[in-house]
């Protein structure tokens, strides 16, 4: 397993090297988090890969997916598929917080806001989003933060069921994320 991990680590390094050439970097702490959880990343990635390929083979007749006659463009065409696999794989190494109480729910909202803020900071610093895009995202994040505070206040007042309105915060954050991805994909 150790040798296998070394190969995967090397492969990730190559991908990150390519990314660096494009002006995109991952910090050392992030890389360490990925490296420490390689088994989970590989496990969930391979599982999803198997499912995706199984579905593609079952429902398409394309030679791209049947392994008999791969075209030269196969690798390029599969980049988005590999992207999804690795991203879902990374989700596998995400620590799962306890979400049992309304307080936990608000805490998850704050943690998500922090994650999106950090990502936006890096994206702007690396000129992958414009100042206007950054300001729009900041406004959405501030609004989400206000909603989270409202949920927190309701909980403190002894109205936890109303505090669960914090779900709206999560929905808003998802919209922000969707907006960012769409902007990046244009």
């Amino acid at each position, binding site marked *: 397993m150790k040798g296998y991990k070394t190969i995967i680590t090397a492969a990730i390094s190559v991908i990150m090297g390519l990314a660096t050439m494009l002006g995109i970097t991952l910090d050392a702490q992030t890389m360490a988090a990925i490296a420490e959880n390689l088994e989970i990343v590989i496990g969930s990635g391979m599982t999803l890969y198997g499912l995706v390929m199984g579905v593609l083979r079952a429902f398409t007749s394309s030679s791209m997916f049947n392994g008999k006659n791969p075209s030269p463009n196969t690798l390029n065409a599969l980049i988005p598929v590999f992207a999804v696999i690795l991203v879902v794989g990374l989700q596998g190494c995400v620590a799962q917080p306890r979400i049992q109480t309304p307080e936990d729910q608000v805490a998850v909202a*704050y943690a998500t806001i922090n*994650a999106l803020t950090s990502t936006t900071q890096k994206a702007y610093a690396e000129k992958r989003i414009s100042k206007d895009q950054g300001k729009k995202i900041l406004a959405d994040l501030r609004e989400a933060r206000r909603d989270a505070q409202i949920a927190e206040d309701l909980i403190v007042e002894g109205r936890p069921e109303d505090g669960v309105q914090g779900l709206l915060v999560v929905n808003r954050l998802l919209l922000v994320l969707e907006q960012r991805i769409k902007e990046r994909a244009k």
Partner: protein
Amino acid sequence: MSSASAVKALSLFIELTQLAANVGLSMQDLVDRQKQAEIEGREFGAQDLKEMRDQVDANLDELEQQLSE
């Protein structure tokens, strides 16, 4: 797929990876806070949320400052 499209796909992939990694780090921080509360024999609650909120405010202010430069 053209090489430009491949570069765009790779760029989007890195973007998503970075986001997933940041979510992972934030959630790990939350898990650590919940464990710490458990070790101290108290409920995860108001004080923890206040600390997280302060952190959110500091990060948002930092982003705003970055965008105003």
